């Protein structure tokens, strides 16, 4: 997380695979490196992602580089073979949040009293919902929640889903791993923001709620509270920027 740059990343290493934890760490490190290195070369990639802002294109390229990095590490080291991770990242610049994601970690935007999903899981279940095979409610109980069709680090190239959304004062951005969203329904996420209105308290509440509901997986939540208009930004752009991680039952955790 680099709040001063408006950059926030959640990666969730794949459970059941060796080195899932390492993969998520590598993914974040590689992304930050790519973004730092990409400052000069940003313009050269604008061809692959027509219609997106330069910052979004840079974010996408960082995710792709991160994928190549993990993939090649996995190929070299048999202990880390098959490692993978999800990623959801947002980069906020000039009040536009760019979002890049792969896998089932999610981003939501709280805007004018509504929680809007900004990402669609790359899971078999979500594909089923999109296809009209499952309704949204049935999908919550579907046994194949855990089957992903796209992750970072398992193929030499990966498609990165991108979006852009303007953010205003009073909006909240929420990034989270599936450890939260499988345990806590979206209404509860919305309620938490609506009632608490404080990034730290929202984080604490949601992690607690997930654990109360039997959270078996790692839970990562980032809540970003967007404060201030352009003239306030310099002094107080992010009133709170918080990161919280809670590990559930070690037998079941990644």
């Amino acid at each position, binding site marked *: 997380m680099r709040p001063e740059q408006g950059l926030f990343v959640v990666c*969730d290493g*794949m*459970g*059941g*695979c060796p080195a899932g934890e390492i993969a998520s760490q590598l993914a974040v490190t590689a992304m930050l490196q790519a973004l730092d290195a990409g400052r000069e070369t940003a313009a050269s990639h604008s061809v692959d992602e027509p*219609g*997106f*802002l*330069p*910052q*979004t294109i840079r974010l996408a390229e960082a995710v792709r580089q991160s994928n190549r990095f993990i993939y090649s590490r996995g190929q070299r080291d048999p202990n880390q073979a098959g490692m*993978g991770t*999800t990623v959801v990242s947002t980069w906020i610049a*000039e*009040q*536009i949040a760019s979002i890049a994601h792969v896998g*089932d970690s999610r981003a939501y935007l709280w*805007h*004018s009293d509504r929680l809007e999903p900004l990402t669609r899981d790359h899971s*078999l*279940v979500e*594909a*089923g919902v*999109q*296809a*009209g*095979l*499952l309704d949204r409610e*049935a*999908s919550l*109980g*579907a*046994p*194949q*929640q*855990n*089957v*992903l*069709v796209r*992750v970072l680090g*398992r*193929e030499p190239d990966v498609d990165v889903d*991108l*979006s*852009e*959304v*303007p953010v*205003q004062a009073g909006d909240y951005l929420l990034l989270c791993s*599936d450890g939260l969203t499988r345990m806590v329904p979206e209404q509860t996420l919305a309620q938490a923001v609506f009632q608490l209105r404080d990034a730290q308290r929202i984080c604490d509440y949601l992690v607690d709620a997930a654990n109360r509901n039997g959270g*078996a*997986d790692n839970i990562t939540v980032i809540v970003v509270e967007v404060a201030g*208009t*352009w003239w306030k930004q310099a002094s107080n752009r992010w009133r709170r920027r918080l990161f919280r991680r809670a590990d559930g039952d070690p037998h*079941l*955790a*990644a």
Partner: protein
Amino acid sequence: MAILTLQRDDCVLKQYAVGPLMTIGRLPDNTVVIDNPAVSSHHACVFRAGAAFIVEDLQSTNGTFVNDKRVTRETLHDGDVVLVGKHRLVFDEQAAGESTGRDAELPASSQGDTVYLKGPENQRLLAVVLNAEARAHTAPAATAAQGKLGVLRLVSGRADQTEYALTGHTSLIGRSQSTLIRLKGWFTPRVAVAITRNQLGYVATRLGGKMLVNSQPMTGRHDLKDGDVLEVGGLTLVFSFKQ
């Protein structure tokens, strides 16, 4: 509630509540895991289509049979027997009992661990899903605005063009370099307005400074309609969909 009962040599091995989409195969990421060499890694799947359940063979080596007939896709009826290798899955459409025991019957792998479905199995399962989409859905009714290109035409004020096509996912108006429509002036915000494009059309969001839409001050978001007049940073612009 529908149930599949897994049997081998008339011995009941396990019962499964039939979910909206379940897979049968040798690998542990399946809903129904049958660890037997006669069973392919992802052998078949059962999914719900409306009120019915359908079994589909996932191009398995040894095939999937319903009541001893080899099938690629078949609607299941009460009492049907699905044969996978030497294992039988008996379909019971109206099984008694509550659905509460269901979670306990799921294989452990589906509870916490995330798995990546790769390669041909992935493609096949996705193909099943997409086929179903084609069958189940006629194309959703398109709204008039869908897919149409929006343009902003300059009515008054000074700018470098008289018409701006909103081709990007996000088009910005402001003083910053990354804007589509560049505003001048010391007190102009770096980004005054963002116009985002989605499946349904365009949404304008005010991000800084003063802005009027159809002479009304705008604060939050506004879905742009044909003929909307935007006033920002000394410019007057009219939004329209290109014919």
